[in-house]
């Protein structure tokens, strides 16, 4: 019998679960600082083969020579890279003994997002009773995938078990020296996911529910590699709607997608890292490099809902190398209070008849700054390349900012590039209209924002679309006084 996502969901609702693929490492944390020894120690701690250690060291060498980029429309105090600890065991000890010890505000948010009590415990770091069945959920899930030849495991496991694939593809889309943060990640990445879909296989479930369970334990420097062989299909969701109160201030992840001929990868993200408090203190810096490579007739879709982090720097991109390949980017970025986001995409058209679509929805409230930055590049041999971009901004209040930085470089005269942009403000008249129909202001804003974001929300897998909607609501609470 095929194991469907629906069944898995049911099972997860009724059963406790454990992290599926983390091996137990004794809880320990490296002292702050970064040098070659630290890089070697990380690699050793993870029992990596020598080629991986050398790979990391090479990345570290590049990183030392690089400078932190300053072109983004964000302002923050640069992190002191020598003051950060670059390794801590993923399964650290529970912070609390029971939910009663956890910040009630956080619990309230969990409840409103519809997160189960067990998951609440996991996410807020409360000790969970071990249930015997827990391993079986993960095992049966893995079994279904294995029957199809799909590999879905942690990147550490992949380095040990599937070195030929990792060697071939890691760094093939985002090279070690691609940029400052990518180089740093390449040197010190903690863990992440690896996914391989064999030729002609359609992954029977969203690789999402399972991943979400894992999310609570992922580290600061995540590394993800997804490979879809010829004619295969996979839909992947990372992240979690639950607020992540992470102690780590700096997050620098790298995600690489490889879509071979006729393959399709759908990659959806919901990011809700701690955005800092209402005064703008604290909060996560999120500097992410995400890129996908499309071979002939391949398609990559990025969908993202970004509501968290104090500073976001993120441009999920598509290299449309093969002829007739398709790249898509759908984004909702919400900033409130003192948050800053500089996010968008790059669509690089190399092959003939390549197409790309960009739909970006920026919502700014409070004193936040929200920027869309996008590059559409058509190379000389990319005949008949087409792009459509639409960037809409919604402003709430008088103190926030919305910015759009579109870059267009076309070197082929047959290219067709369209760019549309709108900026609107939630009006008092709209609010009063809703109020008059019995809808309070908070709910009215949620309704208007959800309407504004609908085109992108529709691209998310169903169950996450519902959660994402609630998340937008919560993120913008109290933003209109």
């Amino acid at each position: 019998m095929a194991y469907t996502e629906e069944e898995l969901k049911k099972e997860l609702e009724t059963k406790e679960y454990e992290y599926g693929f983390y091996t137990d490492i004794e809880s320990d944390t490296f002292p702050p600082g970064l040098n070659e020894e630290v890089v070697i120690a990380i690699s050793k701690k993870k029992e990596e083969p020598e080629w991986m250690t050398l790979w990391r060291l090479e990345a570290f060498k590049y990183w030392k020579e690089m400078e932190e980029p300053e072109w983004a429309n964000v302002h923050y105090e640069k992190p002191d890279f020598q003051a950060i600890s670059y390794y801590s065991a993923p399964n650290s000890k529970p912070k609390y003994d029971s939910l009663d010890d956890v910040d009630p505000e956080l619990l309230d948010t969990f409840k409103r997002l519809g997160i189960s009590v067990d998951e609440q415990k996991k996410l807020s770091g409360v000790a969970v009773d071990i249930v015997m069945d827990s391993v079986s959920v993960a095992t049966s899930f893995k079994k279904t995938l294995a029957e199809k030849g799909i590999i879905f495991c942690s990147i550490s496991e992949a380095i040990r078990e599937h070195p030929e694939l990792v060697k071939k593809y890691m760094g093939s889309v985002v090279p070690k020296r691609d940029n400052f943060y990518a180089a740093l990640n390449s040197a010190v990445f903690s863990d992440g996911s690896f996914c391989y879909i064999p030729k002609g296989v359609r992954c029977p479930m969203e690789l999402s529910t399972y991943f979400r369970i894992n999310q609570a334990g992922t580290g600061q420097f995540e590394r993800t590699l997804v490979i879809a062989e010829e004619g295969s299909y996979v839909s992947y969701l990372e992240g979690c709607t639950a607020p992540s109160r992470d102690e780590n201030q700096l997050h620098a992840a790298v995600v690489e997608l490889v879509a071979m001929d006729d393959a399709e990868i759908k990659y959806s993200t919901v990011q809700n890292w701690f955005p800092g408090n209402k005064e703008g203190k604290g909060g996560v810096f999120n500097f992410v490099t995400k890129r996908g490579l499309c071979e002939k007739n391949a398609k990559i879709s990025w969908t993202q809902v970004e509501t968290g982090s104090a500073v976001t720097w993120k441009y999920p991109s598509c290299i449309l190398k093969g002829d007739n390949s398709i790249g898509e980017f759908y984004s909702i970025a919400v900033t409130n209070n003192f948050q800053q986001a500089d996010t968008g995409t790059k669509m690089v058209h190399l092959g003939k008849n390549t197409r790309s679509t960009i739909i970006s929805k920026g919502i700014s409230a409070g004193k936040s700054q929200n920027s869309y930055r996008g590059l559409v590049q058509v190379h000389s041999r990319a005949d008949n390349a087409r792009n459509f971009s639409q960037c809409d901004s919604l402003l709430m209040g008088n103190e926030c900012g919305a910015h759009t930085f579109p870059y267009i470089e076309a070197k082929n005269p047959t290219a067709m590039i369209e760019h549309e942009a709108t900026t609107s403000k939630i009006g008092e008249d709209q609010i009063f209209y809703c109020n008059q129909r019995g809808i309070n202001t908070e709910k009215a804003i949620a309704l208007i924002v959800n309407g504004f974001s609908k085109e992108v929300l529709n691209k998310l897998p169903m169950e996450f679309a519902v959660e994402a909607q609630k998340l937008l609501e919560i993120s913008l609470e109290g933003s209109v006084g």
Partner: protein
Amino acid sequence: MLKIRNLHASVEGKKILKGINLEVNAGEVHAIMGPNGSGKSTLASVIAGKEEFEVTQGSIEFEGEDIDEASPEERAHKGVFLSFQYPVEIPGVSVTNFMKTAINESRKAKGLEDMPAKEMLKLIREKSEMLDIDRKFLSRSLNEGFSGGEKKRNEIFQMAMLEPKLSILDETDSGLDIDALRIVANGVNKLRSDDKATILITHYQRLLEYIIPDFVHVIHDGKIVKSGGKELALELEDKGYDWLKQEAAV
């Protein structure tokens, strides 16, 4: 049902209503007429609780309860409905979704559970059939790209869905051609009942040929200067507003 006593209201320090007295009982239809800028629409907004208007004197009582301090949504929950002169657009929110939210928010305020989907669909079907509304219309974004007639019809549809006790129709006839006017008026007439009341705010007598009022009031310079039966509307049509202005000045 509605008792307004000596109501004074101003916006940004400018006095607009200067002592309105009005009593509306269940089952009645009142028409409020008057020249542009006399305060008709302000009266509608003040009853609905729009915050930019400041009530400086007087009181509004609804169903025996003082509602001066109530928020617009609380008034809506009690059964006050305003059909807007210029309904706003909410892109990406379908008419159905908007109505679902409105109905469930009102139910929540009364301590009721959300209306079951099946019941909601039935209600939508009933009301849209009654008002001759194409179902496709209901999945469109609220008021976005609607013609003037569609916007007003949508207001009446919402009124039918929410089943308010008191409906205030603010210039519902403006911008409508004669066919659209007839459709909207038919809808309003179908919704008339003994336990509900309607206030029609209009500039022209035209609407009153289709919706026959029990009472007609004329507002001038923030006050009701004349009240009467439906004949008053005809008289106004004949003579214009000037004679009332002069009368008021005396």
